[in-house]
């Protein structure tokens, strides 16, 4: 048998050599190399265009916003409660707090619900049902935000008005709508990260006599931790950046909300509500608001990267 294999190998080698000899040599080698270089150039160009677009937009936002911040002072811009462009008063404190309050209150309910759903889909539901639910959740992510806003305006705002008081346009309405909108992000990313936990972890834990729930809590969730943190932070990013749905349900008063039933205005809402007629300093103040948002998002992304790196430290 060994001899046969040896014969086969030699035959193969001979065959390759003979084919090589029949080729017109130089051309064959040269042409693929040209195509390779061409493709490489195209890929580089695409990357350069994408990066350039981002850099230009960033420069534009900061170039338009920073002069105003310098004029009135960073501290005053961020901590002044009074937003009154007609009187030349540009303080975004109320909107900054508004963005944080609405985002955090949406996270408070959407994060536990989202992670629990992800655990159910990845670990408890039969695989076929789990992946079916996963696809449905991803579909939810594709619904335009204005539709969510419309739903909030027609269903949630009146509900709050009738059952909890106030005029319904409130932090609570924003938190409910935003929570629904970020659930798909939290669920799909958490579910993916739970599904990619190596089966050996689970088997190892069960083989030690752990129950399924103990294994989820003790091994699977810690192993999926960095993915779950990423899911939360990306959800948070989406919540901070969301505009349309929030404008439609939160009432948009430039005050610091006293309760979850008070109306509130977020930074994004501020830009979209006033950009139509703003000019001069007013317009610059809106760009400055954008710059603050931009920095927020950059910080969030940094936190994501750090959490992923921290996770890698422990993984195999």
């Amino acid at each position: 048998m060994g001899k046969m294999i040896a014969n086969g190998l030699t035959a193969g080698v001979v065959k390759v050599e003979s084919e090589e000899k029949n080729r017109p040599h130089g051309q064959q080698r040269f042409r693929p190399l040209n195509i390779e270089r061409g493709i490489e150039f195209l890929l580089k160009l695409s990357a350069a265009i994408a990066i350039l677009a981002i850099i230009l937009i960033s420069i534009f936002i900061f170039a338009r916003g920073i002069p105003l911040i310098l004029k009135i002072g960073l501290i005053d811009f961020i901590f002044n409660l009074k937003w009154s462009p007609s009187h030349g008063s540009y303080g975004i404190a109320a909107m900054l707090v508004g963005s944080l309050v609405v985002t955090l209150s949406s996270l408070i309910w959407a994060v536990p619900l989202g992670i629990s759903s992800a655990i159910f889909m990845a670990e408890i539901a039969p695989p076929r049902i789990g992946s079916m639910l996963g696809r449905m959740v991803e579909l939810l992510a594709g619904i335009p935000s204005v539709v969510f806003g419309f739903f909030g305006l027609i269903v949630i705002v009146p509900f709050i008005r009738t059952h909890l008081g106030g005029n319904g346009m409130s932090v609570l309405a924003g938190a409910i709508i935003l929570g629904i909108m970020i659930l798909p992000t939290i669920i799909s990313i958490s579910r993916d990260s739970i599904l990619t936990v190596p089966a050996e972890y689970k088997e190892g834990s069960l083989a030690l006599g752990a129950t399924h729930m103990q294994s989820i809590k003790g091994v699977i969730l810690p192993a999926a931790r960095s993915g779950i943190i990423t899911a939360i932070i990306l959800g948070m990013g989406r919540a901070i950046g969301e505009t349309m749905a929030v404008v439609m349900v939160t009432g948009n008063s430039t005050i610091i909300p006293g309760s979850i039933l008070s109306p509130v205005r977020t930074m994004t809402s501020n830009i979209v509500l006033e950009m139509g007629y703003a000019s001069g300093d007013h317009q610059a103040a809106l760009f400055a608001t954008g710059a603050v948002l931009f920095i927020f998002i950059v910080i969030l992304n940094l936190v994501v990267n750090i959490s992923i790196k921290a996770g890698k430290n422990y993984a195999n």
Partner: protein
Amino acid sequence: MSQLKLKSENIKVFYKDFQALYDVNMDIEENRVTALIGPSGCGKSTFLRTINRLNELIEGTRTEGQIYLDEQPIYEKDRDVVELRKKVGMVFQKPSVFPMSIYENVAYGPRIHGIKDRKRLSEIVERSLKAANLWNEISDRLNSPAARLSGGQQQRLVIARVLAVEPEVILMDEPASALDPISTSRLEDLIVELKKKYTIVIVTHNMQQAARISDYTGFFLNGQLVEFSSTDELFVNPRDKRTEDYITGRFG
């Protein structure tokens, strides 16, 4: 002859329509190393996993027959699987250290079985790591991530993790297949040492390894236990033609 620890009686395993094991009968003695050999897909790992009922995790798997641990049947409706797996520990092919510190890996088992006292946990961790011949190498970095250990150290850590639960039987599924020769020989020394206190069943692809460390050897082929006898007898004087062909390297 030492005491009977495990007895398998007509074990059949089905995976959907496929029958993976046919009427396996085997007596496994206490404080002995029993090796299971055979070509890939012959059912030896499947048999190993019937002993701690781990096959049940795979959907569509059905087991018939009975296994007795200390004369108690393990395939019973009201048998506590958690309790069974506490008594029957398992080491896998790929060293599956959990993504946490060395200390946490070993303390994991005792913790899930209700031990909370820190002092006691530390004692268990130290004792288990010592028993797995790992303590001297890592006692100064118990809190560093277990994933940073070498493959051989990780496999011994997994063994320490199993020992921490104080099992009676340890199942090993090709524990050395991912290790270099030096780590393998250390692991083999450890296995021989562990049999003083535990009953060990080991699946291995490596026949020299089976010959070196085991007291009994079972040869599996196509889901059947072809031959089961003392290791010396099986390797020197196989009764079945197929066993002889396999151990002399004529197939597989």
